[in-house]
């Protein structure tokens, strides 16, 4: 194999972006996936960050954060966080985005807030303020989950991460499935795919429960199922994700100048 598993994951995610889209990315892997898409097949993709940096591409390597100077260097405008998150994202103008998470469930709800001894709904036991592990919080992900026309979730495929139900919904996916999003009148369409280091999950069009749509050459149905915390359904025509082409790899490595995905 002349590529790493992280590179495969970034390329699989990048393939989900189309030319001309307005997009917002998080840090690390998701930013590499997005800018890979721009270089590889979506030259007119426009990206911005939640702090208010618009229209730029990274210069000099992978930014260490979403407001790094590497991502400010060739921006076409600087605004502020409300302009970006409320007026562009939550209002429904963004076409596509990538979110990371600590936990994701079968309806694509994500938890980035904390892990509690009690498991689900910790505020009901009065222990909300005492998490076992306090995580980084909802951040700008909530607006993206609600407002983006569609978005992609990237997560390492591990049983504790892929839960039947997340401990806490930091950012809603399809909530309890079906038409549950409609109750809240969200402008956005919800998560279109969960891209993991083992494969790609997509939501059933009716129930909105995520199923395995495709897996990577080095993975297997058994490995995916063993690392999922719910009874994962598998598409009747489950596919193997095409391996990166030499051109895709070249474009990804141009963006990933510092070799973040090859470590």
């Amino acid at each position, binding site marked *: 194999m002349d590529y790493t598993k992280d590179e495969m994951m970034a390329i699989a995610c990048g393939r989900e972006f189309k030319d001309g889209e307005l997009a917002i990315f998080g*840090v*690390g892997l998701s930013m590499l996936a997005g800018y890979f898409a721009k270089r590889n097949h979506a030259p007119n993709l426009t990206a911005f960050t*939640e*702090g*208010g*940096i618009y229209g730029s591409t990274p210069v000099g390597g*992978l*930014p*260490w*954060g*979403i*407001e*790094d*100077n*590497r991502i*400010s260097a060739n921006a076409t405008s*600087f*605004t*502020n*966080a*409300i302009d970006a*998150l*409320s007026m562009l994202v*939550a*209002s429904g103008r963004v076409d596509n985005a990538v979110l990371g998470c600590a936990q994701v469930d079968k309806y694509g709800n994500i938890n980035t*807030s904390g892990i509690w001894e009690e498991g689900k*709904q*910790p*505020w009901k036991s009065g222990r*909300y*303020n*005492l*998490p*076992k*592990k*306090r*995580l*980084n*919080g*909802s*951040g*700008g*992900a*909530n*607006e993206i*989950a*609600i*407002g983006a026309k569609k978005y992609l979730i990237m997560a390492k495929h591990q049983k504790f991460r892929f839960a039947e139900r997340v401990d*806490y*919904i*930091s*950012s*809603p996916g399809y*909530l309890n499935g079906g038409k549950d*999003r409609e*109750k*809240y*009148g*969200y402008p956005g369409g919800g998560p279109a795919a969960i891209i993991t280091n083992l494969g790609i999950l997509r939501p059933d069009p009716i129930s909105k429960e995520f199923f395995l749509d495709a897996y990577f050459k080095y993975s297997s149905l058994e490995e995916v199922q063993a690392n999922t915390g719910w009874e994962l359904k598998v598409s009747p025509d489950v596919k193997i994700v095409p391996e990166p082409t030499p051109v895709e790899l070249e474009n990804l490595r141009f963006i990933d100048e510092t070799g973040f995905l090859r470590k």
Partner: protein
Amino acid sequence: MREKLTTLAKAAEKIQDGMLIASGGNSLVRSPVAFGIELAKLKRKNLKHCAAAPGLLADILCADGAIDTIYFGFTSFETEYGLAAGMRKGVQAGEIRPVEGACAAIIEALKAGAKGVPFHPVAGMWGSDLIEANPDFYFVAESPIDKVKVVCVKALVPDYAIVHVQEADVYGNARILGPEFQDKIMSRAAKHTIITTERIVDTQSFIDRPKETTIPHFLVDAVVHVPKGAKPGTCYNEYEFPDAFLMSAYLSAVKEDGLPEFIVKYQKKGVLI
């Protein structure tokens, strides 16, 4: 206009036990770190802090035990430095109450504070567990006109906002180069604002480029000239990368309860302002 140039020590003295403070910047970017370090030395208690993505200043004060409540949307030092160590430690020990918003929810709460209204609607939020877990910060309201429901946040009115900028004059006119995040709103929401600045510039430059003024002098109580005042974090157009050595020294110091020693050691070496 009144001259407001002062020292870090005198500006930090203004912050009293129990106050709600807000600090500008985002994560490792343009956080008023030097001010935070000065304030940590004063051993204040029961401070409350609010920001969309609280930066190093807030984390230092969490690690120092000065903060008992933190309003935030996102607390992390991102790809290379991970979760905000001081805040995480304090919350997990039950010493700091986390009031979790999404980033925009915190800014809308500041916006309510700035306008003098008791609450502000937030786009989105509904359906996440943040609402039910923080009933003293969020509520859901319904428009009597068209019956649409919307999540609202309670106003935040900081006693002090502390904002680090690239350029200010001695009167407090301040200019943020690069994205301003929430800092303009923060200065309008707070009762008082303290500016720390990379450079003191002539007032004429504000007269020449008035559209670029982020914070006007009459909102500002104190101006402190602190070159490199956001280090070991970054500041647009001034220093581009976090100081990797100091950041890991900071994170280990927090882990080992050695923040005071960290401050003394690295200030003595002249690498920490």
